[in-house]
Protein backbone atom coordinates (compact mmCIF):
# COMPACT_ATOMS: atom_id res chain seq x y z
CA UNK A 1 0.00 0.00 0.00
CA UNK A 2 1.23 3.46 -0.76
CA UNK A 3 0.04 6.75 0.63
CA UNK A 4 -2.23 7.30 -2.37
CA UNK A 5 -4.20 4.16 -1.53
CA UNK A 6 -4.51 5.18 2.09
CA UNK A 7 -5.58 8.64 0.98
CA UNK A 8 -8.19 7.07 -1.28
CA UNK A 9 -9.56 5.16 1.72
CA UNK A 10 -10.36 8.41 3.50
CA UNK A 11 -13.85 7.89 4.98
CA UNK A 12 -14.59 11.63 4.78
CA UNK A 13 -12.81 12.53 1.56
CA UNK A 14 -14.04 16.06 1.09
CA UNK A 15 -13.66 18.92 3.50
CA UNK A 16 -16.90 20.85 3.87
CA UNK A 17 -16.53 24.54 3.04
CA UNK A 18 -18.08 25.83 6.24
CA UNK A 19 -18.60 29.54 6.63
CA UNK A 20 -20.71 29.82 9.72
CA UNK A 21 -20.92 33.60 10.13
CA UNK A 22 -23.21 33.29 13.14
CA UNK A 23 -20.66 31.10 14.90
CA UNK A 24 -17.87 33.50 13.92
CA UNK A 25 -19.79 36.44 15.38
CA UNK A 26 -20.55 34.56 18.58
CA UNK A 27 -16.89 33.63 19.04
CA UNK A 28 -15.42 37.07 18.41
CA UNK A 29 -17.87 38.51 20.91
CA UNK A 30 -16.03 36.55 23.59
CA UNK A 31 -13.13 38.11 25.48
CA UNK A 32 -9.55 37.00 24.79
CA UNK A 33 -7.65 35.03 27.34
CA UNK A 34 -4.61 37.24 27.06
CA UNK A 35 -1.35 35.99 28.49
CA UNK A 36 -1.79 37.29 31.98
CA UNK A 37 1.22 39.04 33.38
CA UNK A 38 2.53 37.13 36.30
CA UNK A 39 3.51 39.47 39.13
CA UNK A 40 7.27 39.78 39.50
CA UNK A 41 7.15 38.45 43.03
CA UNK A 42 5.40 35.29 41.85
CA UNK A 43 7.86 34.92 38.98
CA UNK A 44 10.72 35.12 41.43
CA UNK A 45 9.15 32.44 43.65
CA UNK A 46 8.55 30.13 40.68
CA UNK A 47 12.14 30.61 39.50
CA UNK A 48 13.45 29.94 42.97
CA UNK A 49 11.50 26.69 43.13
CA UNK A 50 12.76 25.66 39.69
CA UNK A 51 16.37 26.33 40.64
CA UNK A 52 15.91 24.52 43.95
CA UNK A 53 14.39 21.53 42.15
CA UNK A 54 17.35 21.33 39.79
CA UNK A 55 19.87 21.71 42.58
CA UNK A 56 18.06 19.13 44.67
CA UNK A 57 18.33 16.57 41.89
CA UNK A 58 21.29 14.26 41.98
CA UNK A 59 24.21 15.03 39.72
CA UNK A 60 23.48 11.76 38.02
CA UNK A 61 19.92 12.74 37.32
CA UNK A 62 20.92 16.09 35.92
CA UNK A 63 23.51 14.50 33.66
CA UNK A 64 20.84 12.08 32.45
CA UNK A 65 18.61 14.96 31.46
CA UNK A 66 21.20 17.07 29.82
CA UNK A 67 23.97 14.83 28.56
CA UNK A 68 23.48 12.92 25.37
CA UNK A 69 26.13 10.25 24.95
CA UNK A 70 28.45 9.60 22.04
CA UNK A 71 28.67 6.39 19.96
CA UNK A 72 31.37 4.64 22.03
CA UNK A 73 29.18 4.91 25.13
CA UNK A 74 26.11 3.64 23.27
CA UNK A 75 28.06 0.68 21.90
CA UNK A 76 29.47 -0.07 25.35
CA UNK A 77 25.95 0.03 26.82
CA UNK A 78 24.75 -2.33 24.12
CA UNK A 79 27.58 -4.72 24.78
CA UNK A 80 27.16 -4.58 28.56
CA UNK A 81 23.43 -5.24 28.33
CA UNK A 82 24.08 -8.51 26.54
CA UNK A 83 25.48 -9.92 29.78
CA UNK A 84 22.15 -9.43 31.50
CA UNK A 85 19.79 -10.45 28.73
CA UNK A 86 19.13 -13.84 27.18
CA UNK A 87 18.41 -14.48 23.53
CA UNK A 88 16.44 -17.50 22.33
CA UNK A 89 18.36 -20.61 21.31
CA UNK A 90 19.99 -20.15 17.92
CA UNK A 91 19.83 -16.34 17.98
CA UNK A 92 22.89 -14.10 18.11
CA UNK A 93 23.35 -10.45 18.93
CA UNK A 94 23.43 -8.31 15.79
CA UNK A 95 26.16 -5.74 15.36
CA UNK A 96 24.91 -2.31 16.33
CA UNK A 97 25.84 0.39 13.85
CA UNK A 98 25.90 3.92 15.21
CA UNK A 99 26.85 6.88 13.06
CA UNK A 100 30.11 8.33 14.32
CA UNK A 101 28.70 11.86 14.44
CA UNK A 102 25.50 10.91 16.29
CA UNK A 103 24.51 11.26 19.90
CA UNK A 104 21.86 9.31 21.77
CA UNK A 105 20.15 9.40 25.13
CA UNK A 106 21.97 7.74 28.02
CA UNK A 107 20.95 4.08 28.21
CA UNK A 108 19.83 3.88 24.60
CA UNK A 109 22.40 1.17 23.86
CA UNK A 110 20.95 -1.01 26.60
CA UNK A 111 17.45 -0.17 25.43
CA UNK A 112 18.30 -1.33 21.95
CA UNK A 113 19.53 -4.63 23.34
CA UNK A 114 16.22 -5.11 25.15
CA UNK A 115 14.35 -4.38 21.92
CA UNK A 116 16.47 -6.93 20.04
CA UNK A 117 15.83 -9.55 22.73
CA UNK A 118 12.11 -8.86 22.73
CA UNK A 119 11.76 -9.14 18.96
CA UNK A 120 13.85 -12.31 18.90
CA UNK A 121 11.72 -13.94 21.58
CA UNK A 122 8.58 -12.93 19.69
CA UNK A 123 9.89 -14.57 16.53
CA UNK A 124 11.05 -17.60 18.51
CA UNK A 125 7.51 -17.88 19.88
CA UNK A 126 6.06 -17.69 16.36
CA UNK A 127 8.41 -20.45 15.23
CA UNK A 128 7.46 -22.54 18.25
CA UNK A 129 3.78 -22.11 17.43
CA UNK A 130 4.39 -23.18 13.87
CA UNK A 131 6.30 -26.25 15.00
CA UNK A 132 3.78 -27.05 17.78
CA UNK A 133 6.55 -26.92 20.39
CA UNK A 134 4.60 -26.23 23.56
CA UNK A 135 7.69 -26.04 25.79
CA UNK A 136 9.35 -23.43 23.60
CA UNK A 137 6.09 -21.47 23.42
CA UNK A 138 5.90 -21.41 27.20
CA UNK A 139 9.52 -20.32 27.54
CA UNK A 140 9.10 -17.52 25.02
CA UNK A 141 6.01 -16.26 26.81
CA UNK A 142 7.79 -16.32 30.17
CA UNK A 143 10.85 -14.51 28.79
CA UNK A 144 8.71 -11.83 27.17
CA UNK A 145 6.75 -11.28 30.36
CA UNK A 146 10.04 -10.80 32.20
CA UNK A 147 11.34 -8.37 29.57
CA UNK A 148 8.15 -6.34 29.84
CA UNK A 149 8.16 -6.41 33.61
CA UNK A 150 11.86 -5.90 34.35
CA UNK A 151 13.33 -4.23 31.29
CA UNK A 152 10.65 -1.89 29.99
CA UNK A 153 9.58 1.45 31.35
CA UNK A 154 6.87 3.78 30.13
CA UNK A 155 7.90 7.41 29.83
CA UNK A 156 5.79 9.80 31.90
CA UNK A 157 2.83 11.29 30.07
CA UNK A 158 3.93 14.28 28.05
CA UNK A 159 7.65 13.44 28.32
CA UNK A 160 9.86 14.34 25.38
CA UNK A 161 10.80 11.74 22.77
CA UNK A 162 14.31 11.40 24.18
CA UNK A 163 13.26 10.97 27.80
CA UNK A 164 15.36 8.38 29.56
CA UNK A 165 15.40 7.01 33.10
CA UNK A 166 18.58 6.82 35.20
CA UNK A 167 20.93 4.26 33.70
CA UNK A 168 21.68 1.03 35.56
CA UNK A 169 24.04 -1.14 33.51
CA UNK A 170 22.82 -4.28 35.30
CA UNK A 171 19.24 -3.62 34.30
CA UNK A 172 19.02 -2.30 30.75
CA UNK A 173 15.63 -0.88 29.87
CA UNK A 174 13.81 0.09 26.74
CA UNK A 175 11.57 3.12 26.99
CA UNK A 176 8.04 3.10 25.63
CA UNK A 177 6.20 6.33 24.97
CA UNK A 178 3.07 6.82 27.02
CA UNK A 179 0.89 5.99 24.03
CA UNK A 180 -0.47 2.57 24.86
CA UNK A 181 2.42 0.66 23.29
CA UNK A 182 3.19 -1.18 26.52
CA UNK A 183 -0.42 -2.23 26.95
CA UNK A 184 -0.47 -3.25 23.29
CA UNK A 185 2.43 -5.63 23.92
CA UNK A 186 0.68 -7.05 26.96
CA UNK A 187 -2.46 -7.65 24.90
CA UNK A 188 -0.41 -9.18 22.10
CA UNK A 189 1.24 -11.71 24.41
CA UNK A 190 -1.99 -12.51 26.24
CA UNK A 191 -3.78 -13.07 22.94
CA UNK A 192 -0.98 -15.30 21.63
CA UNK A 193 -1.01 -17.33 24.83
CA UNK A 194 -4.78 -17.64 24.49
CA UNK A 195 -4.49 -19.03 20.97
CA UNK A 196 -4.63 -15.93 18.78
CA UNK A 197 -1.09 -15.18 17.60
CA UNK A 198 -2.14 -12.75 14.84
CA UNK A 199 -0.58 -9.66 16.41
CA UNK A 200 2.49 -11.58 17.53
CA UNK A 201 3.07 -12.78 13.97
CA UNK A 202 2.61 -9.26 12.64
CA UNK A 203 5.09 -7.91 15.14
CA UNK A 204 7.67 -10.54 14.21
CA UNK A 205 7.08 -9.97 10.50
CA UNK A 206 7.53 -6.23 10.82
CA UNK A 207 10.26 -5.98 13.44
CA UNK A 208 12.04 -9.30 13.15
CA UNK A 209 13.92 -8.63 9.95
CA UNK A 210 17.57 -7.90 10.59
Amino acid at each position, binding site marked *: *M*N*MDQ*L*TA*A*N*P*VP*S*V*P*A*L*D*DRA*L*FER*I*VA*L*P*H*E*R*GRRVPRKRTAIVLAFAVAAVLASTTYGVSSWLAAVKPPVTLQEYSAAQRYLTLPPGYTWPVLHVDSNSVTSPGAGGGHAVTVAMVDWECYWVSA*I*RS*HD*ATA*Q*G*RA*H*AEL*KTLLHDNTVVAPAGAS*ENWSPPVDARQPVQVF*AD*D*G*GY*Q*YKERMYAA*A*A*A*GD*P*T*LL*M*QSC*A*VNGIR
Partner: protein
Amino acid sequence: MSDDEARFSAIFRNLGAVTAYAQRRGSRDSEALAAEVMTIAWRRLDRVPRDDPAPWLYATARNLLLAERRGTTAVGELPDVAMPASEPVSLDPAIDRALRALSPKDREALLLVAWEDLTPAQAARALGMNATAFRVRLLRARRRLQAALADDARPPVTMEVEEA
Protein backbone atom coordinates in the same frame (compact mmCIF):
# COMPACT_ATOMS: atom_id res chain seq x y z
CA MET B 1 -13.23 44.47 11.59
CA SER B 2 -10.41 44.70 14.13
CA ASP B 3 -6.92 43.31 13.49
CA ASP B 4 -7.67 40.38 15.79
CA GLU B 5 -10.89 39.62 13.97
CA ALA B 6 -9.15 39.80 10.61
CA ARG B 7 -6.51 37.41 11.84
CA PHE B 8 -9.08 35.09 13.38
CA SER B 9 -11.04 35.15 10.14
CA ALA B 10 -8.10 33.44 8.42
CA ILE B 11 -7.94 30.85 11.18
CA PHE B 12 -11.70 30.34 11.00
CA ARG B 13 -11.35 29.19 7.38
CA ASN B 14 -10.05 25.91 8.83
CA LEU B 15 -13.45 25.18 10.42
CA GLY B 16 -14.40 22.68 7.71
CA ALA B 17 -11.05 20.88 7.91
CA VAL B 18 -11.23 20.60 11.69
CA THR B 19 -14.83 19.36 11.48
CA ALA B 20 -13.79 16.70 8.96
CA TYR B 21 -10.87 15.68 11.20
CA ALA B 22 -13.20 15.23 14.16
CA GLN B 23 -15.61 13.27 11.97
CA ARG B 24 -12.86 10.96 10.72
CA ARG B 25 -11.77 10.30 14.29
CA GLY B 26 -15.30 9.42 15.33
CA SER B 27 -16.19 12.41 17.46
CA ARG B 28 -19.65 12.20 18.96
CA ASP B 29 -20.31 15.73 17.75
CA SER B 30 -17.73 16.85 15.24
CA GLU B 31 -19.30 20.25 14.60
CA ALA B 32 -19.43 21.11 18.30
CA LEU B 33 -15.84 19.98 18.72
CA ALA B 34 -14.68 22.12 15.78
CA ALA B 35 -16.57 25.09 17.21
CA GLU B 36 -14.82 24.51 20.53
CA VAL B 37 -11.44 24.47 18.78
CA MET B 38 -12.25 27.79 17.12
CA THR B 39 -13.41 29.27 20.40
CA ILE B 40 -10.16 28.26 22.08
CA ALA B 41 -8.21 29.70 19.14
CA TRP B 42 -9.98 33.04 19.55
CA ARG B 43 -9.60 33.16 23.30
CA ARG B 44 -5.91 32.27 23.06
CA LEU B 45 -5.22 34.10 19.83
CA ASP B 46 -1.80 35.21 21.02
CA ARG B 47 -0.73 31.56 21.25
CA VAL B 48 -1.84 30.53 17.76
CA PRO B 49 1.11 30.62 15.35
CA ARG B 50 0.65 33.47 12.89
CA ASP B 51 2.37 31.84 9.93
CA ASP B 52 0.55 28.48 9.96
CA PRO B 53 -2.25 27.88 12.46
CA ALA B 54 -3.28 24.46 11.09
CA PRO B 55 -0.95 22.29 13.24
CA TRP B 56 -2.03 24.19 16.37
CA LEU B 57 -5.70 23.65 15.47
CA TYR B 58 -5.21 19.91 14.91
CA ALA B 59 -3.29 19.57 18.16
CA THR B 60 -6.12 21.33 20.01
CA ALA B 61 -8.74 19.18 18.29
CA ARG B 62 -6.77 16.09 19.22
CA ASN B 63 -6.67 17.14 22.87
CA LEU B 64 -10.42 17.73 22.86
CA LEU B 65 -10.98 14.35 21.23
CA LEU B 66 -8.86 12.75 23.93
CA ALA B 67 -10.96 14.44 26.58
CA GLU B 68 -14.13 13.33 24.80
CA ARG B 69 -12.82 9.78 24.51
CA ARG B 70 -11.79 9.67 28.16
CA GLY B 71 -15.38 10.35 29.04
CA THR B 72 -16.45 7.19 27.21
CA THR B 73 -13.49 4.95 28.02
CA ALA B 74 -13.64 2.40 30.77
CA VAL B 75 -11.24 2.87 33.66
CA GLY B 76 -7.88 1.29 32.86
CA GLU B 77 -8.26 1.58 29.10
CA LEU B 78 -6.25 4.10 27.17
CA PRO B 79 -8.11 6.48 24.91
CA ASP B 80 -6.97 6.39 21.31
CA VAL B 81 -7.99 9.26 19.11
CA ALA B 82 -6.23 7.98 16.05
CA MET B 83 -9.13 5.65 15.36
CA PRO B 84 -12.86 6.12 15.68
CA ALA B 85 -14.24 4.79 18.96
CA SER B 86 -17.24 3.26 17.27
CA GLU B 87 -18.02 3.15 13.60
CA PRO B 88 -19.40 6.53 12.65
CA VAL B 89 -17.48 6.49 9.40
CA SER B 90 -17.21 3.71 6.86
CA LEU B 91 -13.74 2.39 6.22
CA ASP B 92 -12.50 -0.53 4.18
CA PRO B 93 -12.43 -3.43 6.70
CA ALA B 94 -8.92 -4.59 5.72
CA ILE B 95 -7.50 -1.08 6.07
CA ASP B 96 -9.40 -0.62 9.31
CA ARG B 97 -7.85 -3.79 10.76
CA ALA B 98 -4.38 -2.88 9.52
CA LEU B 99 -4.62 0.62 10.98
CA ARG B 100 -5.80 -0.77 14.29
CA ALA B 101 -2.77 -3.05 14.37
CA LEU B 102 -0.52 0.02 14.48
CA SER B 103 0.34 1.98 17.58
CA PRO B 104 -1.81 5.10 18.08
CA LYS B 105 1.14 7.39 17.33
CA ASP B 106 1.99 5.56 14.13
CA ARG B 107 -1.64 5.72 13.02
CA GLU B 108 -1.95 9.39 13.76
CA ALA B 109 1.28 10.13 11.88
CA LEU B 110 -0.02 8.31 8.81
CA LEU B 111 -3.51 9.73 8.93
CA LEU B 112 -2.51 13.34 9.48
CA VAL B 113 -0.61 13.15 6.21
CA ALA B 114 -2.90 10.84 4.22
CA TRP B 115 -6.31 12.08 5.35
CA GLU B 116 -5.79 15.56 6.73
CA ASP B 117 -3.41 16.46 3.90
CA LEU B 118 -0.85 18.01 6.24
CA THR B 119 2.76 18.18 5.14
CA PRO B 120 5.13 16.09 7.27
CA ALA B 121 6.43 19.32 8.81
CA GLN B 122 2.89 20.41 9.74
CA ALA B 123 1.97 16.96 11.07
CA ALA B 124 5.17 16.93 13.14
CA ARG B 125 4.17 20.24 14.74
CA ALA B 126 0.64 18.95 15.38
CA LEU B 127 2.12 15.99 17.26
CA GLY B 128 4.75 18.07 19.05
CA MET B 129 7.61 16.20 17.37
CA ASN B 130 10.61 17.46 15.49
CA ALA B 131 10.39 17.04 11.72
CA THR B 132 13.18 14.48 11.49
CA ALA B 133 11.74 12.21 14.16
CA PHE B 134 8.36 12.51 12.48
CA ARG B 135 9.72 11.47 9.09
CA VAL B 136 11.29 8.39 10.65
CA ARG B 137 8.03 7.55 12.39
CA LEU B 138 6.07 8.04 9.18
CA LEU B 139 8.40 5.78 7.22
CA ARG B 140 8.18 3.04 9.81
CA ALA B 141 4.42 3.44 10.11
CA ARG B 142 4.03 2.97 6.37
CA ARG B 143 6.12 -0.20 6.47
CA ARG B 144 4.15 -1.52 9.42
CA LEU B 145 0.86 -0.78 7.72
CA GLN B 146 2.05 -2.56 4.61
CA ALA B 147 3.09 -5.60 6.64
CA ALA B 148 -0.17 -5.61 8.56
CA LEU B 149 -2.14 -5.53 5.32
CA ALA B 150 -0.04 -8.28 3.80
CA ASP B 151 -0.54 -10.40 6.89
CA ASP B 152 -4.25 -9.71 6.88
CA ALA B 153 -4.50 -10.94 3.29
CA ARG B 154 -3.07 -14.34 4.18
CA PRO B 155 -5.51 -17.14 5.06
CA PRO B 156 -5.96 -17.65 8.81
CA VAL B 157 -3.81 -20.32 10.42
CA THR B 158 -5.07 -22.56 13.19
CA MET B 159 -2.49 -23.09 15.89
CA GLU B 160 -2.16 -24.63 19.25
CA VAL B 161 -0.81 -22.36 21.92
CA GLU B 162 -0.32 -23.34 25.47
CA GLU B 163 -0.06 -21.08 28.46
CA ALA B 164 3.35 -20.98 30.12
